[in-house]
């Protein structure tokens, strides 16, 4: 070998040190091999998704969303969004912002090639579409465990830990707004936890737009613990909260707000507009609607 004792000990200790360092790693081998995806890869995928845009929905007129028709519904809060199709130009910044805010994973190459992404917002035609948080949600009534349910505030909520992956909700959504975690994104190195407050979902659960529930929760908590609570006896109305997509839209085409609050930008900007929804959802009392043209 030609190695003397000293060099041998040096190389052994070097190997041992490398082994220890390697063993101390917090990142799994697979992720290390795959590499944690960076923002650039997410941007690439959003561009790919836009190029795979599905057909535009058949839109029909809907009435303005009002009080929720479920027992125990809040009489002051019903959160929703309106997307102004006149302003939207299909740039896709909302999709990227949503993915970053909610730690939405990438998908493997074969799925991307077939146009199946995990994005909570999909492009239909040149308009973004996400879960409409229907008041009479078909997904919630067929979920066997109750993981898909409705909050009194009008959000179609998802409990990841209660999901058993039966995918009945996904089958019953008339517009396929729900996504299923076919893969363990963490293990395959397809996920990046941009937002530390949001968990990465396990393999086998369904997910969809949550109307940035976490932002609403944080705002509610701040409101409840603020010093003015006892003094003003007001209720929390979610004023000032914006979802990630509405925040990121350069044209302000996505408006988030409270349908039951007259001061909410949602109510004010939809005052004189005609509201539309996809034909399949028109009878299901959607909270997320489209706007086009003037009254």
């Amino acid at each position, binding site marked *: 070998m030609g190695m003397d004792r000293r060099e041998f000990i040096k190389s052994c200790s070097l190997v041992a040190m490398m082994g220890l360092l390697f063993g101390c790693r917090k990142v799994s081998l697979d992720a290390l091999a795959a590499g944690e995806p960076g923002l650039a890869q997410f941007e690439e995928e959003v561009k790919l998704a836009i190029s795979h845009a599905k057909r535009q929905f058949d839109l029909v007129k809907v009435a303005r969303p009002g009080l929720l028709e479920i027992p125990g519904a809040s009489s002051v809060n019903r959160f929703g969004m309106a997307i102004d199709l006149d302003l939207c130009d299909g740039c896709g910044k909302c999709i990227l912002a949503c993915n970053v805010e909610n730690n939405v994973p990438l998908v493997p190459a074969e799925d991307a090639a077939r146009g199946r992404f995990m994005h909570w917002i999909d492009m239909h035609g040149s308009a973004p579409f996400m879960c409409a948080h229907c008041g*009479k949600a*078909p997904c919630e*009534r*067929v979920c066997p465990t109750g993981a898909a349910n409705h909050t009194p505030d009008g959000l179609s909520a998802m409990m990841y830990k209660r999901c058993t992956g039966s995918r009945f909700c996904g089958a019953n959504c008339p517009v396929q707004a729900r996504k299923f975690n076919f893969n363990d994104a963490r293990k395959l190195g397809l996920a990046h936890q941009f937002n530390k407050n949001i968990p990465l979902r396990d393999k086998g659960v369904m997910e969809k737009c949550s109307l940035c529930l976490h932002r609403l929760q944080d705002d509610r908590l701040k409101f409840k613990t603020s010093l003015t609570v006892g003094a003003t006896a007001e209720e929390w109305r979610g004023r000032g909260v914006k979802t990630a997509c509405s925040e990121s839209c350069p044209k302000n085409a996505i408006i988030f707000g409270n349908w039951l609050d007259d001061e909410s930008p949602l109510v004010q900007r939809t005052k004189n507009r005609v509201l539309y929804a996809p034909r399949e959802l028109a*009878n*299901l009392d959607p909270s997320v609607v489209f706007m086009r043209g003037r009254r």
Partner: protein
Amino acid sequence: MTPLLNAFACLLALACALFLWRKGSSPYRNGALLAGFLLLFSVFTYFGAAESLATDPALEHYPFRMLALCLCLSTASLPLYRRRYLVLAQVLWLWIELFGGIALYYRGFDVAWTRIAAVAGLAFGSTFLSRISREMEFCLMVLWLAVWVFF
């Protein structure tokens, strides 16, 4: 489906019921007749309500309801086991109405509870019949047609 066509449907079912369970008929003949009647009722529904077929899901099980009515009416000509098959035919009608209604409820339509209750009441009441005279038979047929037309 207009009320006129609805009434015509039950007349059609009555007309078809005459051919079933004739004396000496083989099970093949009866089976073929059943399949043929189902086809006839399907064609009737398809052409009779063509414009509303896509929009009115309540029509989806219309041919099957017609078939159930036809089976109920056909028990009048049975020589054997009339009470047993009478009850069974009405239970079939009840089945189609009840579970069809539940399926439609999930698609946003109200369940026709009065119709289901009427058919259930008739089926339950028929189990108490001790002897089906001609008058009783006629009365039953009238009741079935009434439930079809009015509920």
